[in-house]
Every structure is written in C-alpha cells, then in structure tokens.
C-alpha cells in the first residue's frame, strides 16, 4: 500500500467538505460538511502515525474526535437559536454584518 493513497483520499474528502461549506445554504448541512473536513484530518493523523511507528497519531485523532463532538454540540445550539429568532436556517438570510 502506498502512503499517498490514504493522503489523497484525505485531500479529496477535505475538498468535498470545502465545497459543502461554501455551496450549501442549510445551516445543519454546513455543520455536516465541517465534519467531513475534520474526518479528512483524522485519517491523515492516523496514517502518519502508522508511517512513523508512533502512537501519537491515534491519540491526536482521538482528541480531534472529542473536539468535533464539542463543536457539533455548540454549533447545533447556535443553529437552533438562529431558527428560533429568525425562523430560518438559510445561511444566506444572515447578512446583518454585510457592509
């Protein structure tokens, strides 16, 4: 197995996540796309841990998973609050700070 096949999978997943964040209008969909990007990072961490024969890669991946769980909790609370205040989760409706 080549090292690059895992890294390129991670890169492709990250690019798909970037597309999702930029193109989707639903707030929950944007959060899901962020999860894709975090998972792309995780696979890089694990594969480099294997490549260098250290356990730190797995530990860092676990930390990323924990932080992602916290991020989803707060992110969904914010989306819920937006829905309650504006009755919409279309991110294009939230342009109060537009110059």
């Amino acid at each position, binding site marked *: 197995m080549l090292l*690059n096949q895992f890294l390129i999978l991670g890169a492709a*997943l990250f690019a798909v996540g970037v597309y999702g964040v930029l193109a*989707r*209008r639903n707030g929950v969909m944007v959060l899901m796309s962020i999860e894709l990007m975090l998972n792309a990072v995780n696979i890089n961490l694990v594969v480099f841990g294997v490549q260098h024969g250290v356990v*730190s890669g797995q530990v860092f991946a676990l930390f990323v*998973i924990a932080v*992602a769980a916290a991020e989803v909790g707060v992110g969904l609370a914010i989306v819920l609050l937006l829905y309650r205040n504006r009755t919409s*989760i279309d991110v294009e409706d939230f342009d109060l700070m537009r110059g």
Partner: protein
Amino acid sequence: MVAQNIFFGILSAIVILSALRMVTTRNIVHAALYLVAVLAGLGALYVLLTAEFVATTQVLVYIGAVMVLFLFGIMLTKAPLGNAMEMTGKQWPIAAGVAALLGGVIVYSLVNHFGSDRLVTDGPIYRTADVSDEVFSTYIVPFEAVSVLLLAALIGAIVLARKD
C-alpha cells in the same frame, strides 16, 4: 497486501461517493444518512490501519452520538423534507472551483513530496492498552483540557438553547 489494496479500493470508493452525494443531495435526511456511510467507511479504514481504538471511537462517538445530534438538529429546525428549500446556493460553481483548486493543489504537493513512498506495514501495532498508556502519561494535560472543553461546550450548548 493485495487483499488490503482491494479493501482500500472498496472502502475509499464508498467514502468518496457517499461524500459527493452528501454535498449534492437535495434531501437533508438523505444527506445525514450519506454522512453515516462516510463515517462508517472511515471507521473501517482505521481498522485497515490497525487503529482499533480510533475505529471504535469513530463508531461510538460519530455514528452514535454526533449523528443523533444532527438528526435532532434537522428535526427541531423543521428542515423541509424534499425539495421545498433550495439546498444549494447560486454560488455553487465558484464553490466547486475553489474546492477543485484546493484539492488539486493538495494532491499535486502530495504526489510531488511523497511520490510512491510505501506505507510502513511492519511497524509496531498499537493496541488500545498502548493508546491509553500514552493518553494517561504523555498527553495527560491535553486530556484534562479536553475534559474541561467538553464540560464548557455542554454548559454553553444548554445556555444557548434553553428557552428563557
């Protein structure tokens, strides 16, 4: 070796195709289910990389907890099922261009730098006990910091989402 390559091909095809469907489907519940497929495929890839505890955590935390949170979010925000809401904005060609450019640059630099380096497959295999030894010795301070972060996120989410 060959078997691992075959499984890598199957799993990465599942992951990439589900990810592409996730960001293009018009139904948000379908998108959540495609995200489950992506996460499960990645969990299987962690098993392929001998990271058993990361794979278990992926299933427990992501597929178990995070997906339930997402489904709660979808239901509570009454996301229109079907095509009622335009899910993709008008700027999608620009977004696709940016994503393709970013992916292209990353892949080019990876191929340029790592070329055909082989993955080290005869290295040490770290089991769950080794991972926990490392977490509770070298990374004990970050571990406690993550505990506090989770508590802060929990309290923050409750404060944000409660009614009064």
